[in-house]
């Protein structure tokens, strides 16, 4: 009789546990689907672009087809002298209404960076007024400027190698230009 009672209790406990598990499982299975659709994500022509400056040949300027990437592969300098490329590339705002705010900063640099005395990238507007200076040597340095619609601004590089720099020394620099607002309301 006692054995039967224990079995009954065990069965009830088992039923209770199974019920609990069922409730928990059922709860976990309650969910809603929500969708995010990007229809379409389209490719647009950039409003702000790079283009060759008048010193493109000397600086070895190569601009990508879209105008959103520029590479300089033949800039150099002499030790203890300053080399200036006044117009290595230009930045164009091709929109005819909107002025865009840009932020120029150093993304990375490597090589014989300790042999560099000065490295500046300067932005000049169409009338030759200085609008921004990036000191590439300083970590975290940046410059911001707003380029008005339909304007073309030039980018100048100023490079000074130290007196002790060797003719085998070189550096690589990657700069980042962040253009805010482009792509809004397109």
């Amino acid at each position: 009789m006692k054995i039967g009672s224990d079995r009954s209790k065990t069965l009830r406990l088992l039923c209770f546990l199974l019920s609990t598990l069922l409730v928990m499982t059922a709860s976990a299975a309650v969910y809603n689907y929500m969708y995010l659709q990007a229809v379409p994500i389209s490719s647009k022509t950039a409003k702000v672009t790079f283009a060759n400056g008048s010193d493109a040949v000397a600086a070895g300027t190569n601009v990508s087809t879209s105008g959103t990437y520029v590479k300089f592969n033949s800039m150099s300098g002499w030790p203890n002298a300053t080399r200036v490329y006044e117009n290595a590339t230009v930045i164009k705002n091709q929109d005819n209404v909107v002025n865009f705010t840009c932020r120029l900063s150093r993304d990375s640099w490597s090589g014989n960076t300790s042999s560099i005395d000065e490295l500046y990238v300067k932005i000049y507007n169409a009338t030759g007024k200085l609008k921004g200076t990036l000191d590439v040597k300083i970590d975290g340095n940046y410059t911001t400027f707003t380029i008005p619609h339909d304007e073309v601004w030039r980018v100048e590089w100023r490079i000074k190698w130290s007196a002790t720099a060797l003719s085998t020394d070189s550096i690589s620099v990657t700069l980042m230009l962040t253009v805010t607002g482009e792509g809004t309301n397109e």
Partner: protein
Amino acid sequence: MKIKNFSLTLLSIVLLVTLSVSVYGVVYNTYYGQALPISAETPKVTLQQGTAGTSTIYMNNTSAKVNVSAQITTYDYVLKVLNNITDAWKIKLRAYNQSNIDRLSNCTIYFHDGAVSRQIYIYNGTYTQQYGDLYDLVGSSIVYIAMTVSATDTGTSCVYAYLEIFVPGTSVYNLLVITFEIS
């Protein structure tokens, strides 16, 4: 009750404005510019000591200091500019700073290699000419820098100048620092 409603309305407006600004602000594009590489190269134009006054040429021959005395009027020449390659350049001098030039009744700094080109001219303590015309530095040639000086008083004056060396047909140039010290 009215104040509470007003506060809620104001808060809603502020939140909506903030939201719209934030949404606008996070739309941006990132472009990259790469300089691969920027190299140091052997100087193609260098400075050498002159035969007049005292000149000091610094490392790599790309900067110099010239010392002259106003007791002698003409120093020909204080420096040589050497073109070490066959390509031609255009050069000029530009004074970018100075000290105690009031005492100089005359300080003329000029190029010559046959033809003479006045580059910097101080007359009665003030600049009459702070930079010169572009001068041809033909391939594998030498241009001489000479001076005439006179002073009304004792002391030491300095003229800090760049020798600007242009790649013809471009706005690419090199700046070599030359200090002229006149005692």
